[in-house]
């Protein structure tokens, strides 16, 4: 049995979608300081794998562990340790960037406006703090979503295509944030079509 004492373990996970066998016994492990790059052609189950790792989707076979415990059995502890960036930025169009962050991060931990402003600033969207999400560009929304990931202070980052809609500077910025996170003994699992330009040893998981 593959378990990581202080990290993430995915053990022989199988998922079927009707007749299609999407995840065929996928296994991986990630300990603090690991940056895992999940790649593969379209339709090979990268997002499905991320949803299984978050616990949103239950594998039909296999299991996911956090600190050697099945995530179903330590859901609260696990969820407080993870930050998930999905395809959608998960921002309410009628709320400002700051309000969006306040309401989503505030459900996980007590957070001050200064701290959220600092995260927005580090994501390069400080000027958008008081603008409704509806007026932000797709790239700016992605950066605000990245600011939320930072503000959650989670040890496990699960990022599904974090570079989508970002310009070259945005890609550099997210790469730098990833590097800072793993250097700080965090764990990051990143789904990305392109190679990660991060000066850090990558662990690769190629789905077929």
């Amino acid at each position: 049995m593959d378990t990581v004492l202080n990290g993430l373990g995915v053990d022989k996970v199988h998922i079927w979608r009707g007749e299609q066998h999407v995840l065929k016994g996928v296994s991986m492990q990630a300990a603090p300081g690991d940056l895992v790059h999940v790649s593969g052609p379209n339709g090979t189950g990268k997002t499905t794998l991320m949803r299984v790792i978050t616990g949103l989707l239950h594998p039909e076979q296999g299991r996911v562990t956090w600190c050697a415990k099945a995530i179903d059995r330590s859901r609260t502890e696990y969820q407080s340790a993870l930050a998930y960036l999905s395809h959608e930025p998960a921002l309410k169009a009628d709320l400002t960037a700051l309000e969006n962050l306040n309401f989503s991060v505030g459900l996980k931990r007590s957070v001050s406006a200064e701290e959220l402003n600092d995260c927005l600033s580090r994501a390069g969207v400080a000027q958008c703090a008081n603008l409704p999400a509806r007026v932000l560009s797709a790239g700016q929304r992605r950066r605000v979503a990245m600011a939320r990931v930072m503000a959650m202070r989670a040890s496990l980052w699960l990022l599904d295509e974090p570079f989508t809609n970002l310009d070259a500077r945005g890609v550099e910025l997210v790469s730098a944030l990833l590097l800072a996170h793993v250097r700080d003994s965090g764990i990051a699992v990143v789904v990305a079509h392109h190679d990660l330009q991060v000066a850090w040893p990558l662990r690769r998981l190629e789905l077929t």
Partner: protein
Amino acid sequence: MSVGAWEAFWLIVRRELRISFRRPAELLQPLMFFLIVTTLFPLGLNLQLALLRDMAPGVLWVAALLSSLLSLDALFKSDADDGTLEQLALCGQPLSVIVTAKTFAHWLVTGVALVLVAPLVAMALNIPGFAFATMMLSLGMGTLTLSWLGAIGAGLTVGLRRGNVLLSLIVLPLAIPLLIFGAAATDRAIAQIDATGALYFLAALCVLTCTLAPFAAGAALRITLE
């Protein structure tokens, strides 16, 4: 510092209210529907006041039911569409707490608003003033129960393309007892007969849904998220 369930509840309620008040058109839509439908009846009945008074409880309750249904489809839909629902499911709070907060906020902006304008509608329907208190109390409990029944239906149908039709088919049959006891309470109040029995039934339904529906709606959402 982690956040307690009570704190999370109020945070979600505040968030929902803020979003609602920034979309006044969507906020007023069910209320306007309720007002228009109920005021069309007096116009169609050619000032037959006795008939209008007899029909008033049924008209009032059917309009309240349909007006609540109008907004129920959106209870989880926008959160599901923009990815917020996934974030809420992963925030470390029980889904039942999240669903309770969202449903309570939904009731505040639809049910309470409907109860507040009900006396205006009641005057148009020739309901005497002494029946207003019973009518408002029954509508208050009825709309809260409806919001809960709707939360279960909305949780089950949020992922479907034509979910609003299915939502009506799920919720309307479940709302029949509400219609019967709600209209009976108002009817008895108009006739100056003791309406306590009907109000107790409404209160029982309200307590039943308030205590059990959060878990059912939370489970429905979890299935939908998969």
